[in-house]
Every structure is written in structure tokens, then in C-alpha cells.
């Protein structure tokens, strides 16, 4: 058999990674890039869902409506608040849990599994379970509150703005903490132990060790977790849609529940496309800015 020429071998070596990437790239193009640009396209028209229907070009008017919509302001505030509350909480709890389980504790594998179970549980199931726990009639939350109050308590947690938002945050933290825990656990496990031991020999206290040695060592992981959690928080949807439906009077609305309601309840597809496009741009800008800032200030 003739040996392949050096040029052919080189060509194959160059082509192989691209060929391996091709299926994923094709899926990404069909299911992400195309919908994204189609969504952007729809946002400039008064678009009707029926094929062949007339779709007049409206320019930026859908964006104007989005910007002047008071519910969008409430939804944007609630989405921001969700990120501000749940992202640090998930990171902190995930890191603390990972730190506790890095040492060889008895039942380590069991604890890991228990903490990770919420991550793989369906959002729908979790949302319904929490809605039941916080039900005004016979929910566990009211049973516990009744024990402390000494009389029957019937708080309608999900029908009030701040208690409703609180339950939404709680679900987000409970469901998401296992993910950051596993990532941090892997990062801590992969960190050279001699760094920490050297710090201890030098007399560094635990807080100093964390601040000066451990966190800087796992900094890329922290950035990765932070960015993905912020992107995830910007997409908060399921628990709001299933537990409060954005109520009472749109006060627990978040950006994607409002976009969904506009598209599939009110048939305002172009408005929803404009809103979703704006969210995409904002999240992209935030993510890029975040990475840049964190890379420019590696120490702090």
C-alpha cells in the first residue's frame, strides 16, 4: 500500500478538528443562530404567524413600544433583582459546600449526590412542589409559621409581590446551588494542595488563605460560574410562569414571562421578538464586559 504523502497527512490533520466540529456547528447554526437572526428580522415587522399573511415593515416601532412599556421596567427590575440575589447566593453556598466536601468526609459521595439532585430535577416539577409548599391553604410554609405563631396562619405567599418574589428566588437558589457546587468542587480538587499547605506553614489564617491563595487559584472557574449564572438568571422563566404567572398585577413579572405572554397570549409576536432581541444584546454586552473587567483586574 502506498504511504500517504506528507501534504495529504497534513491536510487531514488540519481538516479533522473541523470535521469533528461540523455536527455541533450545524446544530448550533440551525437551532440557535438562525432563530436568533429570524427573531431579529421579525422584530422589525408587524409579523403574523400565518404563512403568507401580510407583514408590514414597522422599523423600530416595536423597540419603542418595549422601551416605553411600564411592565418591561418592572420585569427588568425583577430580573435584575433575581440575578443580584440568586447569583451570589448560589456561588457562596456552592463554594462553602464544595470547601466542606473537599476534605475526606464520611459519606462524601452521598452528599455530592444529594446536593446535585435538584439540578437534574425538572424545573416544572420543582416549581409545582414549591407552589404546593407555599400554598395558602395547606402548604408546609404556613404549617411551620402556624407553629411559631401559635394560631393558624394562611399567608398567600405567591399572591403577594415580595413573598412571591422571595419564593421565586428561593427556587432559583435551591435548584441552582448544586451546579456551582460541582464546578467549585472540581476546581478545588484540582488545585495543588501544597499551595494551601505552604500558606498554613507561613501562618496564614483561614480567611487569608481563602482570599490570597484559594480564590485566586480558582479564579477562572469563579469567572466561568459567575458569567454562566448571570446568563441563566437573565433567562429566569419557568418558576415565575408556573408559580405566580407574573402576578399579582404583573408585579412578579420577569422579562421572559412578559415576552412569552406577549407572544402566545396576546399574539404580539413582533413585540416579543424585539424584547427578546434586546435581552440578548444586553446579556451579551454584560457578559463581555464582565470578562474584560475581571481579566483586567486579576488580583481583585
Amino acid at each position: 500500500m502506498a504511504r500517504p504523502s506528507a501534504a495529504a497527512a497534513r491536510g487531514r490533520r488540519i481538516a479533522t478538528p473541523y470535521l469533528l466540529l461540523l455536527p455541533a456547528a450545524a446544530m448550533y447554526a440551525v437551532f440557535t443562530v438562525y432563530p436568533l437572526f429570524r427573531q431579529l428580522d421579525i422584530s422589525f415587522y408587524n409579523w403574523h404567524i400565518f404563512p403568507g399573511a401580510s407583514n408590514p415593515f414597522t422599523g423600530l416601532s416595536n423597540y419603542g413600544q418595549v422601551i416605553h412599556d411600564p411592565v418591561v421596567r418592572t420585569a427588568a427590575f425583577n430580573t435584575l433583582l433575581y440575578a443580584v440575589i440568586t447569583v451570589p447566593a448560589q456561588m457562596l453556598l456552592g463554594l462553602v459546600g464544595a470547601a466542606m466536601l473537599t476534605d475526606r468526609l464520611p459519606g462524601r459521595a452521598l452528599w455530592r449526590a444529594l446536593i446535585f439532585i435538584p439540578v437534574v430535577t425538572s424545573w416544572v416539577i420543582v416549581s409545582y412542589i414549591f407552589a404546593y409548599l407555599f400554598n395558602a391553604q395547606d402548604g408546609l410554609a404556613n404549617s411551620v409559621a402556624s407553629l411559631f405563631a401559635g394560631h393558624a396562619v394562611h399567608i398567600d405567599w405567591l399572591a403577594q409581590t415580595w413573598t412571591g418574589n422571595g419564593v421565586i428566588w428561593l427556587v432559583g437558589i435551591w435548584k441552582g446551588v448544586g451546579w456551582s457546587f460541582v464546578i467549585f468542587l472540581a476546581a478545588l480538587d484540582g488545585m495543588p494542595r501544597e499551595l494551601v499547605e505552604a500558606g498554613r506553614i507561613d501562618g496564614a489564617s483561614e480567611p487569608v488563605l481563602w482570599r490570597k491563595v484559594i480564590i485566586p487559584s480558582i479564579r477562572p472557574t469563579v469567572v466561568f460560574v459567575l458569567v454562566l449564572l448571570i446568563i441563566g438568571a437573565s433567562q429566569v422563566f419557568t418558576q415565575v410562569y408556573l408559580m405566580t404567572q407574573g402576578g399579582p398585577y404583573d408585579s412578579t413579572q420577569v422579562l421572559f414571562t412578559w415576552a412569552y405572554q406577549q407572544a402566545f397570549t396576546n399574539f404580539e409576536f413582533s413585540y416579543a421578538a424585539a424584547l427578546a432581541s434586546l435581552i440578548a444584546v444586553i446579556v451579551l454586552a454584560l457578559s463581555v464586559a464582565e470578562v474584560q473587567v475581571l481579566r483586567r483586574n486579576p488580583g481583585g
Partner: protein
Amino acid sequence: MALRRNRPGLAVCAIGCAALALTACSSSSSSSSSESSESSASSSSAAKTVTLQFWSAYNTTDAEASTMANVVIPQFERENPGIKVDSVVYPYADLLQKFLAAAAAGDPPNIMRSDIIWVPQLASQGVLLPLGNLPWYSPIAASALPGPLATTKWQGQPYALPLDTNTQALFWNKSDFKAAGLSGPPTTLAQLYADAAKLTIKSKQQFGLGVDGTDIWNVAPYIWSNGGGFTNASYTSATGVMSDGGTMAEVTALDNLLKAGDIGSDFRGGSGAVSGETGFPKGEYAMYLDGPWAVPTYTALQPPPDYGIAPVPSGTAGSISTVGGEDLVIPKNAANLAATEKFAQFLDSQFAQLAMAKVGQMSAIATYGPQEVSATPYYSIFVQQLKTAEARPVSPGYTKLDTDFSNELAMIIDGKVSVSAGLSAAAQQSNTALSGS
């Protein structure tokens, strides 16, 4: 430890792509749920037999869906050899989205039983076949009740056939009335308020009146009867109607009743609320408005509640309830139109209308009224109420208008805004919803 650092440009690019991917997935995932398996008749390979897809949200827990599938459709198939009908029943909450997805994919069912409030919304999207020029349309329209017929039109053109109808009347608990020394149901709104106060017994958790929510379906009978309303006659503006006169007076009256503790938990809603249909037989509500579907439910209870049904109490404008029910719609590009038209006509025929009337689906065709009342005597009060019942605003923006009104009314009864400010805001928001009409 030598920490490996990726090139910043690549990292930014990767993060950017991830952000775009995640947001794009989120915004597009909902629209990807088209039901490709719901093939329409066009896919039928049989050369001579045409199979029609009929989508509905008939109740499967009682006899509605089974009567359609086992009585009405077999009769149609006997009368029309070569046409088969496949009845596909979805939960109400899923039906509209399934239809939208199928229509967007160019594969809608041949015919659908649509909630009356969806008709202008679907028509404005260009999804529905206009029926006005079909030769069989006019005779059916001429025999329909005016209220249900009004729900079939958008911009003056009919896009649906009236199929079934309903409305609400006042259910009152005879035992509670007797205990309160009241001889019979209230006939005026003023009496209703006074009776609600007398019938409220806080120690028994008994409320004089149940109002099942702040949405238009639940409060419109009070508002219309008191001379109020939601939009002008052409459904183009809410100003001067939703925020003035009878509407404001009636909302104030309901708000005062709630503050006095005479209306139960159902008005505010939420997970702690007990609906009228649940609370009435248990003695939680002495009066509430409900439709004919409640009667079989109560008949099945042991022991059944001791109750009567009366017209909505009259206000300055009379006794006016809300038109409910469903229409038949045919998608514009549905296959086998001739067979579909035959089936649509059959569903409004005497046989189909009276068969479905026996299982709670009141006929939208006026001429069958006496026969359905004779077969189902308790329909009489609802048939009487339908004569003056009004349709909710027939506009593509109705769903949004309803949400705007309902939210503002909820804020009013929660004390967040005054009646005047709340209704003005509702009218202003509703004008935006109506502007697309």
C-alpha cells in the same frame, strides 16, 4: 501553581456565543413545539375516504367529548359516506397554542371549536377562512342568537360559526336565605348588596356573595347591569366607558362589599381562594354567578345543595349577563374544504345541537331553544338570560384588555390605587390593546 490562562479574545468570543445561544434558545424554545404528529386530512392516503381533523377542548370528565365522538360524529359519518372525522380533544389551556403552532407550520386541523374570545385574535392574524361568502352561512347566521353571533365577527366580516353558548345567572342558597329571614333571591343590585350583608356570618365563614375573580367574565354582569361597560360600541376605545359612570359606581359598590367582608376569598384569587363552585355547596357563599355546567355538578353531590337559580339582579340598565361559549373556525388553508363545510353545517344542525345540549352545551341557534329547554328544564333561566346577555369586547386585543382591567381592579381592591385612578389607568392601557383592532 501555574494557572493556565486562555487568550482573552477567545474567551470573550466563547462567552458571547454562549450568551447568544442561551438567550436565543430561551426565546425560541416556546415556538418549537409544533405538533408535527397531528397530520391533517391532506396526509390521508385513502383515495376515496377523506378524514377530517376536528380539534376541541370538550370536557373529557363528563359526557361532552364522548357524546361528540360516539353520537354526533357517527351520525355525520352515516349521512356522509366517504368522510371520516377524527375528534382530537386537548386541554383548554393547550388548545390555542397547539392550533397556532400547527397553523404556523402550515398544517392546521380542518376545523376547530374555538373559545369565542379567540376568534377576533385568530382572524386578525389572517389564520381563519372568512365565511360570509359561503352560500350556507347566511341561513345559519340568521337563525343564531344575536349574542353568540356577535362573537364571530372581526371588522364586520364573519370568521366563525356560532356553535354553543352559555351565560351566568345567580345561584342562591335557599337554606341560607331562609335562615337570614329573606323570602327569595334579590331582583335588583341594591337588594343584592343588602342581602349579601345579611347573609354574611363571619363566625361560620359564610360570605353573602362570591365573585370568582377580577376579570371581565366575572364582574361584567354587575357592571353591565349597572349601566357601565368596557369599550365603545365599535371596540376602538375604552375612554369614557371603562373609567366612568356605571362602571365606576359598580366597582365602588363591589369594593365596598369586599371591605365590609361580604365577598369571599375568591374575588382576590390566589392559592387560598375558594371558587364559587366549590364554596357554594359547602355553605361558604350564599350567592354567586355561575353557568349551566354547575347544575350537573351539584346534582351529583350527596346530598345536593338546596339552591335556586335566578336572573342576574337588575341595575339601571336591566339584567345583563355575559355571553360565553364556543364558535367553529376553519383555517384558511385547511385541506378538504368541501367536506369540512359539510361537517360545520352538520354541527349546527338540529341533531348535533340537541345531542350536545343534553350534555351541557346550550345551542347557539335560537330555533332549538324550546326543544332544549323541554329536554333540560333548568336551561330555561339561562335561555332567558341570554336574550339580554352581552358579548365581551370583540377585538383582537381583548385578552390584553381583560388582563389590564383585571390587574387594575385587583390593585383597587388591594387598596393600592383609588377606584378612579385604577379605572383610568385600565382605560388608558386598554386603548393601547384596542389600537390594533
